[in-house]
């Protein structure tokens, strides 16, 4: 009974995570400039991978009763490094002089430089 419940939870999490990754890829294709794309790639995919890994963790707990600590470490590692990469990419893009899209309504950073 508990095994079925745990495996169902893990399947739901993995499917949601896969959908988040799909929408992140779609966002990279459709969004106009590098900063908006960093939103999709840096975050939606981070959440997607975290959900998939959590799903795998719960799946093995339910199936074998085996708690895989390496997966837990992987989740924490992705949680720490994912947003950092998005931050660094957008920061270096801005300082290299990449123009944001024309729809940008406000730019406080330009005055500060």
């Amino acid at each position, binding site marked *: 009974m508990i095994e079925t419940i745990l495996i169902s939870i893990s399947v739901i999490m993995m499917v949601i995570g896969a959908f*988040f990754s799909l*929408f992140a890829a*779609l*966002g990279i294709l*459709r*969004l*106009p*400039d590098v*900063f*908006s794309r*960093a*939103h*999709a790639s*840096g*975050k*939606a995919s*981070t*959440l997607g991978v975290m959900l998939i890994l959590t799903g795998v963790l719960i799946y093995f707990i339910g199936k074998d009763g085996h708690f895989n600590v390496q997966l837990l470490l992987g989740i924490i590692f992705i*949680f*720490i490094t*994912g*947003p*950092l990469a*998005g*931050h660094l990419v*957008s*920061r270096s893009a*801005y*300082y290299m002089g990449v123009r*944001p*899209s024309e*729809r*940008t*309504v*406000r*730019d*406080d*950073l*330009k005055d*500060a430089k």
Partner: protein
Amino acid sequence: MAIQVLINVLLAALWMMLSETYTFGAFLFGYLFGILFVLVALPLLPGNHFYLRPVWKTIILAMIFMKELILANIDVIRIVLQKEISNKPAFFAYPTELKKDWEITLLSQLITLTPGTIVVAISDDQKTLYIHSIDFSDIDSEVSAIKDSFEKAIKEVSIR
């Protein structure tokens, strides 16, 4: 603060020696007793607050973060799935009151992971974060949304 933790661990070790059972269960039992002692002796110890208070506040921060993460990810999906993408991106300055380096790092990490906002740069005097917002409404609501949720919770965590 850290001394309180050390005293608690030492009390647990003392309890194990007194009862001559060197198991994890005995350590846990002694630790729980030690919490009571530390609570009673709190005015004599360094630090203004009991040391489990930041632990509890950290759990609350994690809860707030999970909620924001899921709600805002749905927001980004809504933008991506529009027929004609018509978001209004913007860079806005966010004045922060946090002082320590790790607080600012934690705040920018949380801001970056909540979809809708990415920290692009931090000013040299570490008083202003420059944030890129994917769908900008107006400056007051954007600033207060971060200030009320994350900055308040991080301040609660760092109170000693």
